[in-house]
């Protein structure tokens, strides 16, 4: 039994636990790679690392890791912005007006469970291969978390906040900008964070569509065709890292700007 409950002791134990599994995975990976001795199934750690520590080196004429990651990010940002611009106003409308809610709800409920990737063939048929298709698929992925959280956030705005504003002389538009939006902002932001995560997953998948010739998803797919397993794994790690960083940035804003939601009793 460990009876060390001091802060330092707890911290040490916690950080120790945090690194336990990654270390085990790396060691296990290396052991299996040595035993298998087949780089087309599981390459040695060092070959993956050599791809990761040289992110500006061209890979098989497909461009380097960083450039491809940036291309993917640009696509996801484009799709994410389109989704945000559509989902937030619709969510506010549905949250504020029963009529708007009635009109849109059934269609939204029907579309919501469809996996974004199910739209791939339709996207290709409608928009051909290219940015528009990707934006469409990414947008589909990001749209619903943003919509549902906006709706939730708007509905969660305290009735008395709105009433107090109305009595203080707020017009309908001012109630929206001064009460509904700031009051729902933390929940909307959560929706955007979740939406961006899904969008990021979608872009990688969208880039695996036939005919694509750039982006981190394409790089992985193309490396598979060339038997470059180290690049596949390096690409997957980059995808994960970017996901973590973006999520962290969203959380950073959440903590600094929407502190009040946590502290409000």
């Amino acid at each position, binding site marked *: 039994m460990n009876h060390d409950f001091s802060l330092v002791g707890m911290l040490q134990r916690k950080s120790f636990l945090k690194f336990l599994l990654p270390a085990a995975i790396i060691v296990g990976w290396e052991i299996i790679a040595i035993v298998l001795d087949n780089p087309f199934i599981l390459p040695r750690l060092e070959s993956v690392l050599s791809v990761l520590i040289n992110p500006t080196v061209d890979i098989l004429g497909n461009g380097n890791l960083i450039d491809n990651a940036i291309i993917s990010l640009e696509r996801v940002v484009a799709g994410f912005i389109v989704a945000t611009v559509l989902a937030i106003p619709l969510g506010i409308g549905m949250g504020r007006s029963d009529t708007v809610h009635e009109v849109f709800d059934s269609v939204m409920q029907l579309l919501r469970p469809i996996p974004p990737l199910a739209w791939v063939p339709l996207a290709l048929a409608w928009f051909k291969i290219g940015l528009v298709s990707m934006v469409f698929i990414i947008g589909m992925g990001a749209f619903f978390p943003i919509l549902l959280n906006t709706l939730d956030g708007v509905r969660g705005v*305290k009735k*008395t*906040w709105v*009433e*107090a*504003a*109305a*009595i*203080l*002389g*707020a*017009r309908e538009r*001012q109630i929206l900008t*001064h*009460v509904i939006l*700031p*009051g729902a*902002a933390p929940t909307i932001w959560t929706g955007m964070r979740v939406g961006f995560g899904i969008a990021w997953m979608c872009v990688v998948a969208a880039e695996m569509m036939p005919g694509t010739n750039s982006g981190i998803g394409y790089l992985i797919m193309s490396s598979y065709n060339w038997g470059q397993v180290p690049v596949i794994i390096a690409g997957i790690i980059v995808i994960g890292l970017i996901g973590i960083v973006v999520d962290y940035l969203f959380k950073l804003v959440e903590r600094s700007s*929407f502190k*009040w*939601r946590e*502290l*409000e*009793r």
Partner: protein
Amino acid sequence: MTLIIDHLSKQFAKNGQDTIDSLVDINVEIRDGEFICILGPSGCGKTTLLRIIAGLESPTTGKVLIDGTAIDRPNPKMGMIFQDYSLYPWRTVNENIAFGLELRGVGKDQRDEVAQNFLELAGLSGFGNSYPYELSGGMRQRVAVVRALAVDPTVLLMDEPFGALDAQTRNRLQHDLLEIWDKTKKTILFVTHSVDEAVFLADRIVVLTPRPGHVCETIVVDHPRPRDRTSVEFAKVRRYVLDLINQPQCTLQ
């Protein structure tokens, strides 16, 4: 200023067809600068009455007139204070106080000045840049009171404003409210279910019956302020009110 509640009734729809009476034929005439307490048990419709006066709800029949004009929507002559304070947690105390002025397009400098003055009136100097979640319940309600006052309403409507506070804080705020009332000369309509609170605060107590609420009696309390809660006169009024609310005419409709 005169505020007249004229043959006001309110019914609510209950599962579609049936309606239930919430308020029946309320008639009250309120004079300028008066402190009125509306006293009644939970569910008697006293909050509904206040919300109708605020223009947040409309009466089924009858009307509320301020200076001869019927109220049918939120009116800038009214200021409302809610039991849950209803401060905006993303705004600082100063920004909360100046909110009404901001909505009216008053410039930042002037807003800051007004906020500062009302902050002092609330006894919260130095807390202007704090956020509501950094304040105690009593302090929050003080902010809510001056937020309503900052746009200079004629009537203050207070919906069980001290109901969520502990007894000590509550007594303190009652005392301070009377001081603010004295300084600002507002007309106050104060909803409460506490007999003690009503006797301590009011010029007149409007006693409502349980649902459906109607006025069973209006009691004039003309003891000078500050009132001593432990005095014999205070106890007399208190006993009278307590007896009254157990009388048949105040328990049955």
